[in-house]
Structures are given as structure tokens and as C-alpha cells.
């Protein structure tokens, strides 16, 4: 559809988080009727199948169970359809085909084919190709599909045709695969009384860590990160995450890292409860290849980095990397990482010709500059006045004109002499957008 034909179209985003919570509620609801649940949801609808074998003793006959299940689902504000049948696929098809039904549909054993006959083919999970073929053949309902001669159908569509026909007749058998919970590393502990001392807290953390590591080890996994969430007195929580460069199960190391982190970022009130979750990853490797050097001792490296970061602040530890821009002095700090590639064999050769040394001032020092014909003639630097003897420039650079922060510099390389006859070779930078001057660097 062309948007220009409609004045204002509001596109509503799909609310995935709400869908997830609805799904959890529905599974919980279904779990009250049977512990064996198989989920068969598609991208657009939630669908689950309950194995109700043997539940008639406490839930009553299928019709009563169906009614109760439907009521329970309605109670959480979801519209649903419940179908009960001996055959799993028949139940699914009937539920799909009667999505708006207000009552549970119970199919008696042996009557599946008749119950399915009037349903459209779309209740089956057909491929686009199959749907097209049936549409060409004029087959619109499960009854029409079931009525096709079986052998001839197989000779055309192969065993897939056979399966579809049995699905349409309600005779395709199914091996029930009950839902299992995903493996998550999560432990909690509630304290009898508020705890303030970090040592006491670490005692508890150590105990929980041991359990988490044990559970991970049982699955040949290691911890990659640990998030500790503290419920604090007076409401609210305090959450911290520590991680190592490589997944590991060294309890002492984790304890040390958590200790350092909590010391740098302590909770501001007493702690009432402790929740710990961990991400898991594959167990660490000490050496990445036969001819590669052994990796540094991870616990030591991680602890050292954590200590430095606690002092200099986050985002200030790592390797500096130059950025691809003409903007002067542009760099970023990249966290240290283990390089999996080979080190360059031939590092760039040192230049033979001597280069002038430059001392970049960080931060640059603001100055006032006297200009004559747009050229600097004098300026102040560290309380001394300098007369410019030679000035080279201006060197212009500008960029990011399309962004919120365009920049534009004019810079001069000057040789200047102070009133006390001291020689100074430096780089003066003029921020053209705000018309301010700085001494940015000194030449040796």
C-alpha cells in the first residue's frame, strides 16, 4: 500500500516483552492441569498441548477439564480455544480451526476424521508449495484432502502427502516432547537480618558462587560473568556485574573480583537479600594452539585490570586506538582482548630520518593571541608573553559538517621568543567555531 494515499499511518510495534509474559502465564496456567506440556506455538499464536492421560481422577472428564482450563485462561485475560482429542494433531487442528469458539470442543475417539473434515487446509502447517498445489487442485478442506486416493497422493507428493493425509484424517501419531526449563544459573538467598559488613556478605557470596560453579561444572561449562543484585533496606536494589576475559570456574578469582567491585561500588544501605545470576560459556583454554604462546594467567590479569579500573575509572583501561578521522587528537580506548590471530611478523621498520619530537599537551592550554593580518604575532603561555618570530600556517581542518558536532580548526606552527629571550616552538590551535586559542603542543 502506498503511504501517500493515507494521511497519517501509525505503525504499532510488536510488544515482545508482553508476549513473553503472557506466554509464561499461560504455561503456568496449563501446568495446573498437567505436568506434561508440549509447546507448539507459531510466530503469531501461542499453542500448547497438555497430556491429560490419567487426570480424570482429579480434574474430571475431558469436557469438565476443558471448561476449567478455558475458564482459567480467560481469568488471566486471554482469549483461547480448547480442543480435546485422542490424537495430538487432531486436537491442534481443531483448536486452530475454531479459534473463536467459546466452548471446549471434545472429540470422541474414532470421530477425529469427521470433526476435521470441514476445517480449511490452513490449520495444517503446510509449506507455501503444498498450499499452492492444493489450491490448484481445488482442495480446500481437510475432508477433501482425506478423501484423495492415498496411493495416488503418495505417488505425487511422496511421504509428505501421506503424512498430510493422515493429519487430515486425525490418524498421524505423535511422540510427545514435554517442555523443559532452560538451564539458567540463578541463586538467591534472603537474610534474616540486614547485613552491612561486606565480609559477611562475601561469605554468603562465596557459598552461592560455589553452588553456581558446581552446577556449571556439571555441564562442562564455566562462568563468563556474574551479576550480583542486592535488595537493600528501605526498598530498591543495587546491581553489579563482573566478568572475566575468558570463562572460568575459579571460585577465589570470582570472589576477589566481586570483592574489588563491591569495594569500589558499595551498596549505600544494609542488604536484605542477595540474588546472583551467572552467564555461562565454554571452559577456558590455556593455550590457543600448539605454537602459540601460553595465555597470561587469567586470574592475575583480571584482578590487576580490575584494580586499575577501580582507580582510574571505567572506560579508561585498555589499548588506545586511533580513529579514522581527520579530527586532530581522535582516539578511543579499547578493552584488552586476547588476539586469536597471529602477530604481524614484520612490524613496520623504524624511519631512518630523524623526526622532530612533539609533546602534545593534554589538555591543551588556553591562551590569548595577538593577530596582525590574521597571522599570530604574540601570545601568552604559562604567564610569559611570547613574540612570534616565524609562523607557518594556517593549517585548516574541518569535518563532521553533517552532524550535531561539526568542528573546524586553524592551526599554526610558531617559533616564538619570550621577553626573557626564551625560545619556544609550539603549535597554536584556533577553534574557529568558538574563536578561542590554545597551545596544543610543544616542539623539542
Amino acid at each position, binding site marked *: 500500500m*502506498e503511504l*501517500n*494515499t493515507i494521511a497519517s499511518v501509525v505503525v504499532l510495534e510488536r510488544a515482545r516483552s508482553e508476549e513473553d509474559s503472557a506466554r509464561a502465564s499461560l504455561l503456568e496456567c496449563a501446568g495446573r492441569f498437567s505436568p506434561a506440556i508440549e509447546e507448539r506455538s507459531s510466530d503469531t499464536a501461542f499453542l500448547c498441548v497438555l497430556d491429560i492421560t490419567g487426570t480424570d481422577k482429579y480434574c474430571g472428564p475431558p469436557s469438565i477439564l476443558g471448561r476449567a482450563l478455558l475458564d482459567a485462561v480467560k481469568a488471566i485475560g486471554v482469549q483461547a480455544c480448547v480442543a480435546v482429542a485422542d490424537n495430538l494433531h487432531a486436537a491442534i487442528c481443531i483448536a486452530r480451526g475454531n479459534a473463536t469458539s467459546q466452548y471446549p470442543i471434545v472429540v470422541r475417539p474414532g470421530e477425529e476424521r469427521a470433526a476435521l473434515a470441514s476445517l480449511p487446509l490452513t490449520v495444517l502447517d503446510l509449506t507455501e508449495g503444498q498450499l499452492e498445489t492444493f489450491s*490448484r487442485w481445488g482442495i480446500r478442506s481437510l475432508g477433501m484432502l482425506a478423501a484423495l486416493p492415498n496411493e*495416488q497422493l503418495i505417488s*505425487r507428493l511422496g511421504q509428505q502427502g501421506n503424512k498430510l493425509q493422515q493429519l487430515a484424517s486425525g490418524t498421524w501419531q505423535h511422540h510427545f516432547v514435554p517442555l523443559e526449563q532452560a538451564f539458567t544459573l540463578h541463586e538467591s538467598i534472603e537474610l534474616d537480618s540486614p547485613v552491612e559488613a561486606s565480609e559477611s556478605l562475601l561469605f554468603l557470596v562465596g557459598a552461592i558462587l560455589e553452588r553456581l560453579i558446581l552446577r556449571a561444572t556439571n555441564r562442562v561449562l564455566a562462568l563468563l560473568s556474574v551479576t550480583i543484585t542486592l535488595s537493600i533496606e528501605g526498598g530498591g536494589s543495587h546491581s553489579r556485574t563482573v566478568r572475566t576475559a575468558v570463562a572460568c570456574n575459579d571460585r577465589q578469582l570470582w570472589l576477589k573480583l566481586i570483592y574489588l567491585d563491591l569495594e569500589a561500588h558499595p551498596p549505600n544501605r544494609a542488604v536484605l537479600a542477595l540474588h546472583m545470576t551467572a552467564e555461562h560459556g565454554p571452559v577456558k583454554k590455556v593455550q590457543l594452539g600448539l605454537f602459540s604462546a601460553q595465555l597470561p594467567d587469567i586470574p592475575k590479569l583480571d584482578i590487576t585490570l580490575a584494580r586499575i579500573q577501580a582507580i582510574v575509572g571505567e572506560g579508561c583501561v585498555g589499548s588506545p586506538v586511533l580513529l*579514522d578521522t581527520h579530527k586532530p587528537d581522535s582516539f578511543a580506548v579499547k578493552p584488552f582482548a586476547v588476539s586469536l590471530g597471529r602477530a604481524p611478523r614484520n612490524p*613496520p621498520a623504524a624511519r631512518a630520518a630523524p623526526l622532530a619530537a612533539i609533546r602534545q599537551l593534554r589538555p591543551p592550554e588556553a591562551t590569548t593571541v595577538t593577530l596582525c593580518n590574521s597571522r599570530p604575532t604574540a601570545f601568552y603561555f604559562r604567564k610569559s608573553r611570547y613574540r612570534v618570530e616565524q609562523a607557518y600556517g594556517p593549517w*585548516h581542518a574541518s569535518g563532521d559538517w*553533517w552532524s550535531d558536532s561539526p568542528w573546524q580548526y586553524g592551526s599554526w606552527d610558531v617559533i616564538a621568543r619570550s621577553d626573557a629571550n626564551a625560545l619556544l616552538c609550539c603549535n597554536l590551535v584556533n577553534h574557529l567555531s568558538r574563536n578561542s586559542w590554545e597551545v596544543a603542543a610543544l616542539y623539542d
Partner: protein
Amino acid sequence: MTNYVELHASSAFSFLESASAPEDLIQRAVDLEMSAMALLDRNGIYGAAQFHLHAKRNGIRAHIGAEVAVSNFGTRLTPPAWLPHQNIPEPVRLPLLCETREGYQNLCQLISTFKLREAQKDEGAAKLDDLYSYAQGLVCLTGGDEGPLAAALMRGGEQAGCKVVDQLISIFGRENVYIELQRHQEREGEWRNQAALRIANSLGLPVLATNGVRYATPYDREVLDVFTAIRSGTPLDKAGRLLTQNSQRYIRSSAEMDHLFRDIPQAVEQTAALSSRLQFELTSLGYEFPRYPLPDGGTMDEFLRRRVEEGLKHRYGHKISSLKVRAKKQAEHELALIAKLGFAGYFLIVWDIVQFCRGNGILIQGRGSAANSIVCYVLEISAIDPVGKGLLFERFLSERRGEWPDIDLDLPSEEKRERVIQYVYRRYGELGAAMTANVITYRGKSAAREVGKALGFDEDSLARLSSLVSQWEWRDKSDTMAHSFRNAGFDLNHPRIAKYLELCMRVQGLPRHLGQHSGGMVICQGALNKVLPLERASMPGRTVVQWDKEDCAELGIIKIDLLGLGMMAVLDDCMKLISEHYGSHVSLANLPEDDEVYRTLQQADTVGMFQVESRAQMASLPLNYPKKFYDLIVQVAIIRPGPIVGKMMHPYMRRRQGKEEVTYPVPILEPVLKRTLGVPLFQEQLLRMAMTVANFSGDEAEELRRAVGMRRSWERMKNIEGKLRAGMSANGIATDIQDTIVENVSSFALYGFPESHAASFALLAYASAYFKVKYLAAFACAILNNQPMGFYAPAVIVKDAQRHGLRVKPIDVQKSDWPCTIEQEADGSPLLRLGLGYAKGLRQQAAESLVQSRREHGPFSSVEDLAARVPLLNPREFTLLANTGAMNSLKGVLHRRDALWQVERAGKPEGPLLHSLREPQATEAAASPLSQMSTGERLAADYAETGLTLGPHPMHYRRAELQRRHKVLSAAELRHVKNGQYVRAAGCVIARQRPGTAKGFIFLSMEDETGIANVIVTPSLYDQDRLAVTRSRFLLVEGPLQSQDGVIHIRARRLTPLGDQALALRSHDFH
């Protein structure tokens, strides 16, 4: 202050490497009072013609040169390896300036050499040997950042720099090498300048200051950065060092350059000295049209005379008649003029192409003013007898105008036209002929998409925006780019969005890349590569010159247009079918004037006919009421933006119907305008009017004609208007009449139509009408075999043919070929058989294999037999054929569904284990388990698989219900309704049109089972109900009927979409 001349500038014709159009560079030079400037675009002289022409108009000398990539001098300067950057290695580019014509010719040859060395369209790079071969007459600069000296200095210091300069001296000579200094106020550039100065001193070479211009003003640097991002496929945010460091590469004034080079004043002074040394300008290209290679050594004039004499006998017979006498006299007159002007070679070359076509069974017809010439007629270049039809030769060729005759040749499109083009290449050599270029420039859509990408907008937003940029030819006030932006959900108050919009506007019209013109060919006597650089086109086997057809024409290079015309292919096929199935031999040149054909035209029953089938043509045909060939010439010419905007269409029609008196703006114009009832309709009349009322000389009239014929003529038109008014005032013509005449002239600036051109088109229009009326099966067959073409979809063509009594049979694997064919009914009358090509998705190769098997081994006995004999058919194609009903005639097939059931089984034998046990399908019941398709299902299958139906029109099935519920009238019934009566009609929309001349009105054509009804939608109704107008396949329309002089429209007041029952019908929408 020195007289600085910028000798190293490049334009947007460096395709995404520079940001200003040549005229902007010249304008800046004018503003700075610069006396000359040099243009050096990347690997070509693409912008040179426009640069030269603008410079000439502004009194500036235009020096021509190019930056030529050279592979032997290493790669261009890139940031050092330790700095992150994305620059890819490219060869350095050597700036070369043409000092003399020889230099220019060498530059053209140099570029052609390395461009043609590439196997396909590519930038390419010259080798040292090429430079040695073509160095004469060229002046070499050492270049800036892109040049060889900067690269060498960075690579190996001054020693390497010296070596490169030495090499340049050995190639071009010491006096032709200049050490170039550019100061872009970048620190790194200055040490290279200091090194270059030392090299210049050590070698005793002059230094030359330039600014390596990439844009006219500093502000344009933004466009260059956007272009860089587009070229590298990287958004601006990530382009980093690919972008320029600052905005200094603009055209600087003398004062600025003096200040910048105050330490080296001689570098600036040298620019004026070098400029005065560069003598070459594009005014003397040295172009010469090829002479015709004579077989017997006589003169070309004699050879032409003999061909004309032969032609006279052929066209007019051996008997003496008054027509022949007049023709002979006219031929003598023309031959004398042709000899005097020296054009015999040109005529013979065109004749040679025509001969090739005749010899190879390719229909060809000259169009344009050639139709005025008896020589063209007897040489079979054109098919219109100018003597018989009373056309004036002077409109074609005039001694006073002194211009080359213009002959455009229409050919059947695609394969046959390609054969002719390849013949011209063979005849004149790869370096003697080439296609003219077509410069693809940024337009609304492309600008929005590419600039948006560069600014980092997401694909979805860009796709949404592109789809909203208006498509219709007519644009109302709301169809601005800003409006499209707002509709796409962009907030124009956001600075980035505002910048986006601004940049989109700024790049509009700037070149994006070079394509090739559809049919314009340039031929040259000597080597064409000395006149213009040649390069490979994207199409294999084609070469292209670096200028478009307008640039070529402006600089006096003659082109021959070999144009593809779908109708030529239709007529070609049609004549073959007529000869094969009707036993008649017809030719375009001797079609009889036939009353039945004119009656059909008068009734606007013209679906499928050339030029007269559009809605507007249909609406005007009953008014014009053509009774003879000249009426048709007028008809073809009158429904054009020129006559409509110039308000000439309605006066002509009124006069034609006798409702208005025939008058002339001034009595002296009577001889000029008599044939068109006092209303100027043709370009030739415009020319004559100017000569008559304003005393224009032949040259001035020629200037006027060129101005109105060119796209880029607004500026020139304004100048000429002044002259025209002055001339008319001198002749005592009143101001209001002057205004009328000027308005007439200006409206032709858009799409003026020459009378001769109209005559050529009218002949094709008449031929198509004649064939349709007299040989409907052949015509329908030919037009269906040459789709897509024309105004209507095949479904409409078929329904129209059926309404005219043609029996059309469906696709049948036992009967159909790949194209549609003609079969004979039992009574011998022809019927049309749809071809396998109409089964959408069937591969031609598979279909031909089917036909071959049928021809060699007879009809297929069953579906299984078909599968076994044509293994090339894949399952999808089998299903397709079954679904169209093409297998219904096979033995054992009951209906389409049965065929579908069988094809799923066919070609799938049991495995070897079971094979011996039973025959395939032996166990299957004879009756199909599937039920027959319903009418609706059959209709849906027809449209889905072939795009048309041979059964009743879809509206037929709904007629009773529509009549009962809504009192809906059919198209046929509308003809009997009174003017002004409120009616309801419904149909399938087959064409939508919003012409630029119709002030936002939309015209719909609706087809039902009885014919076609026309609907007018007002702009306000369109705004109210856009979806119904643009999207609905079937519409119910109500409103008052407008019926005047046999032209019937419904003026829509209300539109209701009708459900289309999943029919995938297509309309042809014209914008």
C-alpha cells in the same frame, strides 16, 4: 595583482570525484573576472563540451585537458599505513593540457587506447608506452595529491620525485613539464611543495600554482564529501579519511592566490603565461563526416545520381506520368543542392545502411525531416512520397541554413537494431563509429536514496521516501521533495533531516554516471578516436563517445539515430504474416487510401494502433475526423504538450469542425499557416513564421530552431525572444499579436513536432490502422508477439480483437509455437493461436524443445508422453501449462484439474524395484479425483498464468448483478446516453494517466465486455480517494456523462472499488 588562471579544475563530470557542474565553474570564473580556466576531468573530457560552450558565451577561454590514470607511476597518495583509513589503491593521475589540436587529438587517442584496452566498461589506466605515443602537443603538470610527484615523494623522498619528473621530461619534453604547486593549507602538503620546489630548481623547470579545484565554492565541499561517501559505499559517519580534510579546493581569486603564494610569486604569474600558450579550443575539433567508399572510382555525386535514377524508376514505374515528371524535376533540384553543399556522402551512407537492412530482411524507415525529400524517398530511406503528399523539401535541406541534414532511422527494436548497429561498427571500424553517450544525472528518487544512504538513514526509511517521490508527469504544488519527506515521516525541523533535504536539492542534475544513448551513432571520416575519446559501453560489443547527443550537435558532430521502434517490428512481422496467410504482398510505401480505415479512425476505434491509441488521441479523433492522410499527420502532431500548452489544439479542432472562422494572426502568415487552418502546429511553421514576421535570416531561424529543439534551451530562448519581438515591432505587428506569436514559439520549446516527423509517424499510424482493419489476425498476432509495447496490455489487445470478430484460441501444447501464430478455420478464415510465450514463467528453451519434439515425432499421446519426450520441462512449467489449459487436448485429460493431477505424477516413475511389476499409472483410476474448475477459478488461473483470458470478460460475470443492484451501464450503452445524464459504469481499469498538461486531472480507461469507457477524475476527487484511483483493478464510477461530438467521458463524482476476486490484472499507468 596578477592575472591568475586556474589550470587544474575538475567538474562533476569526474563522476563523484568533483562537485560542481561545468557551468558553475564558469560562473565562478566570471564572478572572479578570471580570463581563462582549464578543465581536467578524470580519464575523460566528458564535461568539456558544456564547459567550452558556457565559457564561450561568457567570453572566457576554455582550456581542455584531462587527468589521466597511469599505471606505471605507482598508486595514488593514501594516508600512511599506521593511520586507520579505507583508501583503496588507485593509479596516480597525470594532469595533461591540450596545447594544440594535435595535442587534443593525442589526448583523445590516449584515453581511447587505454579505455578500449579493457574488456568491459572500466576506468582503465594508461601505460608509459601510451604516453610516449601520444605526447605531442600536450603539456604535463606534475599534479597535486592525486599526481605522480606527490606519490613518488611519499614513496621514496626527493630522489624518487626527481626520477618521476625526469621520466615526464623524457616523455613530454622539458618545455612541456610544469612542477605544480597546490596549497590546500594542509601541513603534509607543504613539505611536498618544498620538495617540489627544490626539484624544480635542480632541473630548471617552471613552477605553476593551481588549486586542484574540485568544486566552485567552499560550500560545495559538502557535496563532494557526499559523493565520496556514495562512491565508496560508506556512510559519511564512517568515511573518515576518505573525505577531504578541509574546504580549500575551490576556485580562488587572483588576490587569494597571490597571498597564498607570496613566497613564490612566479608560480602564480606562470599561470597566465601557460594559458596564453595553450592555443587549442574546442571550436576546431577536426571532425569530418565519412565519405562513402565508392566501388567504381567515380564521384559520390555521380554515384548518388545513378542511385536516385534507379530509385525513381522503382518508385514511380517506367511509365511517364505527371507525378513522375514532377518527381524527376524535384529530384534534379535536390541533387543539385546536395552536390552544391557536398552532402552526397551522407546520403550514401544512410542509403548503405538502408541497403543492408533491405538485404537482411529488416524493416527500416527514415523519420524526421528526411520525409520531405524525394531523394530520401527514392533511396528508400523514407516511405513517404513528398511530391505526392505535397511536402516541402526546404524544410529538410536549405542552402541558407547550411546545416547537416538530419535523418533518423526507425528499426524494429532489439535484435535487428543491434544487427544494424554492429554492421555500422564493422563498416567504419571500431575507431570510426560509436554510440553517443547518455549522461545519467541525479533525479528526485536517486538523490533521495543515495544521499540518504550517505547520511546513514536506514533502508526502510529510504525505501519509503523513494516510493513517495512523485511518479506522475503532472506535479501539483504538494508534489515537492519537502512534501515527500514529510509524508515519509521525516521531521524537517531536525537539523540532520533538513541537511538531507538540502543536499538532495543540491545534487539534482549533477552527473552520476555515463550510459549510452539508445540509438545515436557518431561516424567519422578519419579515426573517431581523434575527435572524441571512446570507451566501452556496458553492453558487449558497443563503444560509446564521451559526449551526449546534444553536446555532439552543439559542436558540429553529426550523428545518425538508429532508433528502436516497437511498431516497426509489429509492421515487419505483420507484412510477413499477411504474405504467408493471406497471400497478399503489401509494402508501407504503397498502401492504398481506404475509407473503411478512415471510418475506424474517425470512430476512435484505435486500440493497438501506432500513436493514435492513447486516451487523449481517442478523445480527439472524432473531433478531427480524419478523411485523408494529411489529417492524420495533423492528428499525430496535435496531441503533444507543445500544441496543448500553446493553446493551439482546441482552436484547430473548432476550425476543423467549422465552428470557428479560419483567421491568421497577421495576413502575411496565410501562406505559412493555410494548411493547418491558421493555427501553427509544426516546427517548420514556427521557422517560417519567424522569417516572415520578424525578418529572421536563415541563420537566425536556424538558431531559433536549435533553441526550441534542445532540452537546455531556456536561456537561449530568452535571448531570441528579444530579437523576435524587435523584428515584429519593426514590421509593425501589434504587441498583443506579438505575445501570441511568442507564446506559440515558447510552447514548442518543450516538444515541438516537425511536420516531416509527423508525416513519418502518420504513415506508421496509417499502416497499423490499415493492417488492423484489413488483416486483423496478422496485426493482433504481430502486436502480441512484440510485447511490451504501446498503450495497452495484451489482455486488452485480445479482448479488442475478439470484439472485432477475431477468434482467438488458447495455448495448446499440441498446436502452439513459442510466438502467437495464425491458423485457418475450416472455412479458411484466419484465427489466432496464443503462443507458449504467453505462459508466464515458461522458459523459451523448454518451449522450443517441446515444439521441436512435436514437429519431429508428431503430437503427444498423453501427459506421460509429453514428460518423457520433453525432459527440459521442469515440474513448475508442467504445472503452469496444465493450469492454463494447454494440456486439455492431450489424450486422457478431462479438464485443467485433471491435467494438474496428472502432471504431478508425470515424470516420476516407480523405482527400479517396482518398475518391472507394473506400468506407470496402470493402476490409477481413469477418472480424476479432482473436480473441474469453476468459472471464477478458470478466470483466476487465466490471469495468473497468462495475464489474459479468452473467455468472457470478467465484467460479463458481474453484469447482471451490477445492473440489478446499481443500474450500471456498459461501455456500449453509454454511447446512447444523453449529454449531462447522471450514469453509473463499471469496468476493469486498463490505463491511468495524469498528463503534465492536464492541470492535475487524471484520465482512466475502463474496459468491460462491450468496450472501453473513459473517466475523468478531478484533482479534488483524487485527493479524496487516492487508493481507489491508483490501486483498484475494478471500479464502479458514477457521475454525469459528457458526450460531445462523439467523444464520451464520465466526469467522476464518486468512485467505488469493486472486489477483484484475486485477479492479477495489470493496467498501464502513464505518468
